[in-house]
């Protein structure tokens, strides 16, 4: 198991956002986390990546505990994240952003006297090539179109050379054509480099199309977990989603 979450609890005031969640992710797998709005998916991601500290419970990565560590420490251990809202560096160029992500992962960001422009260029261009942003390498991040910015978001997460990639609603706001593109990208990257991917999504076509395992969250609790076929038949999951667009 690459990632293990045991009995995680997190409350905000009186509201229990995470209520005893236990979850494990196998190395090299493509797992999805689904649930209606407010189920606590982003809160869970925030706790895994260190942005929030859980009230109780454990998170273990590669056998070592990472509960409550700072985001930068967790990132260095090999977990990166692409955000749901675009969270990029407006005044850095595409190339600079990706180079920086790689440099940060390799621990070179304390170097004061080397010219950053010339460092890790090939690796950066490789990442940009994979996501299809190579021609826009020189553009400022804020000059990109919305769709390209989301791709850059993904590129930043990939550039961190992660072992576990967390994707927070990667399809949000994308056209059907872009969705196909990104879905193929995720699958390709995962197969090529043996990356482990955990993503949360509302687009059920994508979720049932590519994931190997699905975990269903509702009101901060895991109500079902298993292969896509099993989840489709699950009574409770159907009930929870009644009134929501199932989209199958």
């Amino acid at each position, binding site marked *: 198991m690459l990632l293990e979450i045991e009995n995680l609890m997190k409350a905000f005031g009186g509201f229990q956002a995470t209520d005893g969640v236990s979850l494990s992710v196998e190395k090299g797998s493509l797992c999805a986390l689904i649930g209606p709005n407010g189920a606590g998916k982003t809160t869970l991601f925030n706790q895994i990546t260190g942005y929030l500290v859980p009230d109780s419970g454990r998170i273990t990565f590669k056998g070592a505990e990472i509960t409550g560590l700072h985001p930068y420490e967790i*990132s260095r251990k090999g977990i990166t994240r692409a955000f749901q809202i675009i969270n990029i560096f*407006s005044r*850095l160029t595409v190339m600079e952003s990706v*180079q*920086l992500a790689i440099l*940060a992962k390799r621990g070179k960001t304390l170097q004061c*006297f080397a010219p*950053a*422009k010339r460092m890790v260029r090939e690796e950066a261009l490789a990442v940009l090539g994979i996501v299809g942003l190579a021609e826009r390498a020189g553009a400022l991040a804020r*000059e990109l179109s919305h769709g390209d910015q989301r791709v850059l978001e993904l590129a930043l997460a990939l550039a961190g050379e992660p072992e576990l990639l967390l994707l927070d609603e990667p399809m949000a706001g994308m056209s059907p054509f872009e969705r196909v593109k990104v879905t193929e990208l995720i699958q390709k990257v995962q197969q090529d480099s043996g990356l482990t991917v955990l993503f949360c999504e509302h687009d059920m076509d994508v979720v049932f199309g590519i994931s190997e395992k699905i975990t269903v969250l509702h009101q901060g609790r895991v109500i079902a977990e298993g292969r896509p076929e099993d989840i489709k038949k699950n009574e409770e999951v159907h009930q929870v989603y009644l009134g929501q667009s199932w989209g199958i």
Partner: protein
Amino acid sequence: MTVDSRNFWRTGWPWAGLAVVGLLLYPQFVSRYYIVLSTEVVILALLATSYNLIFGYAGMVSFGHAAFFGLGAYAMALLTKNYGSPMLVGLLAAPVVAAAFAFIIGWFCMRTIRLYFSLLSLAFAQLLWVIVFQWYGFTGGSDGIQGVPRPEILGSYASYYYFALAATLVCLVLMWFIVNSPFGWSLRSIRENTQRSQFLGINDRFYKLIAFTIAGAFAGMAGGLYCQFQKWADPELLFWTTSANPVLMSILGGMFSFVGPSVGAVVFVALREIIKVRTDYWPLVLGAVLLTMVLVLPGGIVGFVVDKGRALVSSRNGEAPAP
């Protein structure tokens, strides 16, 4: 023009080279008044660039930068005047002393953000000012330390100009490397999006502390040079209104470019001298200029020129200008 030479001129290095040559030759042609003025500009350019390291590059708005400038000046004054050390010792001590204070103050300031950071940096600076102002026995109180000795070879105006210029250029080159290094890029990412930079693996508080200390060190260096320049260390150097000057210069010249603060320093001093000849009311004009700049030109002069230049070049090439 062939493509190659056009690209060569665009990189900026030849312009920098020309500027340096100009700066070296220029005292030969002008009167003493301009040489003295230029010395001041050079030192202030160093101070402003050191400030922009944390302001423009890391996004930290400190209102206490003058403290490090003043501390450097007093280190130089105390060592050379009161303890008879050679000037070079003073010049090495100034940045070290300033950096030490910057590290301590920075450590406390890093725990706060935005507005409270600015206020805290201001509070620290004012505290230091009061101590320097009141500690008559050690710092000379409101009189400051006067009669700071300067080595004989640097006695003339021109020779001190060259010395200050050399020291400043060395510091600027060092800062240039820092700003274009992975560390410098990390600072920019912290400025753009602190949360994201954390998720890249950057410990933003630590990096900001380092940047703050380095900026303090260079400000201290500027202070040491300035002390030798005016042969006097006075408490006014640490007062918060002195802190405003590098902020002004960075914004005037453009905080998102490396040379912006230096340009701002030149414009600031030039304006001051031109206005002072015509009227006593220099602060009024400065205030009006600052107000106009703040309301109208957010990118500073360099930003304005760069944007216009980019538009000009793009239209010449037949493209639409970038947004």
